[in-house]
């Protein structure tokens, strides 16, 4: 279980996150929705120590991490328990698909190479990329790269995987393959926090939905309630805006 408490973050004068707290139970899939600039991505980045929050804590695996002041060792230890999938994949350009997946196991976790390769192959198989194991990123489509990136994030069996708009950089015809993989992981019980604009994923793949706006959580519901009977006016307006569009 992960408990996120009172995260605050400003960039200069602009308050991007004002006191965000939520909870993720094991096996939960949480979709974080909201308009651009609502602080969704910044929150994921703060939760991974890619950005230093101005305040906030995470309680994870019974251990408390201060998002502002944590020692390098604590951050390293924390990061080994999470996975992160970036909007623009960020595969290592000098490594094949398989090496991308095994690198963290071998270098950061000091796993034996044979064991790492075995797990790496299994992870690539789960995302349907086994036949591309020897491909360099430059030889793969965006959707294929993102699937390898998902394999890289999950190969260490982290307590949670953060997804930062995983399909936003993809051509529309490639989003399907990535969403299918994510839905499969969700069904298999992976704990996931997904910042997304994909309403279909939020509706079908997520257990709970968090709607953010202006750096605060404006509504938090189970997925079905959110889409059928939202409580707040803001959530209603947000959903109407989306239905008004062509999604």
């Amino acid at each position, binding site marked *: 279980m992960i408990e996120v408490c009172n995260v605050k973050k400003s960039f200069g004068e602009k308050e991007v996150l004002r006191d965000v707290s939520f909870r993720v139970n094991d096996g939960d899939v949480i979709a974080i929705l909201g308009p651009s600039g609502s602080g969704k991505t910044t929150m994921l980045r703060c939760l*991974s*120590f*890619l950005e230093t929050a101005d305040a906030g804590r995470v309680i994870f695996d019974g251990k408390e991490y201060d998002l502002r002041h944590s020692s390098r060792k604590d951050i*390293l230890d924390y*990061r*080994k328990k*999470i*996975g*992160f999938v*970036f909007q*623009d994949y*960020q*595969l*290592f*350009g*000098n*490594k094949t698909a398989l090496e991308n997946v095994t*690198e*963290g196991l071998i*270098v*950061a*976790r000091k796993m034996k190479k044979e064991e790492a390769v075995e797990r790496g192959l299994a992870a690539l198989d789960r995302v349907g990329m086994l036949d591309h194991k020897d491909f*360099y990123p*430059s*030889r793969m489509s965006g959707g294929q790269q993102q699937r390898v*990136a998902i394999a*890289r*994030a999950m190969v*260490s069996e982290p307590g949670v995987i953060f997804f930062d708009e995983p399909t936003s950089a993809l051509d529309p015809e490639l989003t399907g393959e990535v969403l299918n993989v994510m839905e499969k992981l969700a069904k298999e019980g992976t704990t996931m926090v997904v910042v997304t604009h994909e309403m279909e994923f939020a509706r079908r793949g997520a257990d709970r939905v968090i709607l953010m706006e202006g750096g605060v959580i404006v509504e938090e519901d189970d997925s079905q309630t959110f889409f059928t009977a939202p409580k707040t006016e803001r959530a209603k307006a947000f959903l109407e805006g989306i239905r008004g569009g062509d999604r």
Partner: protein
Amino acid sequence: MTERIIQELIDSFPKLLLTALKVTVPLTAISFTIGILIALMTALVQIAKIPVLKQLARFYVWIIRGTPMLVQLFVVYFGLPSIGVTLSAFPSAIIVLSLSVGAYCSETIRGAIESVPKGQLEASYCVGMTFPQAMRRVIIPQAMTAAFPPLSNSLIGLVKDTSLAYSIAVVEIMAQAQRIAARSYDYFWLYLEAGLVYLLICTLLTWLQRVIERRMERKR
């Protein structure tokens, strides 16, 4: 061109080549190796934004790039003895050439490291790597691919810069040509021959650069 001159050129060529192998090539190889290590460290302290060291690195690059190598050679070889540091010619040349390679190539390497998408560093962190691990395994290998052509350029430049060591009495190709010509007064032909030896070394390096680049290309 008389027969005598042809004979002299044929006689002197092995001598110049031997000097190249015994002096110019080691001077280049040692200075370049030390220089690249300096360059890498200078680039890394700037990228890791380590206080004090970062400023020192910038200061060093500023001084070396902003002053002529001839001045630097004179300061080290003729100047340092007056404050009690006496170095012989060859080590003096190594020091100056290494520092020069270090300064110029640090900018090349810094640029190359910055050309690798920053997200890959973040991705390395997110699979649990430390900064040094990410640099060694992910960022620097890719930066080196980008830096390889300009670094080859620097290496070829260095081969020719070693001729400046002539000014502090290192007996390299130029000095050797000068000595031989002093006996026969065939300066024109011997200086041309010296140029030819440099050209040979640089042609070899250019060819080597192409071979290696083609091999790196295949690994993509």
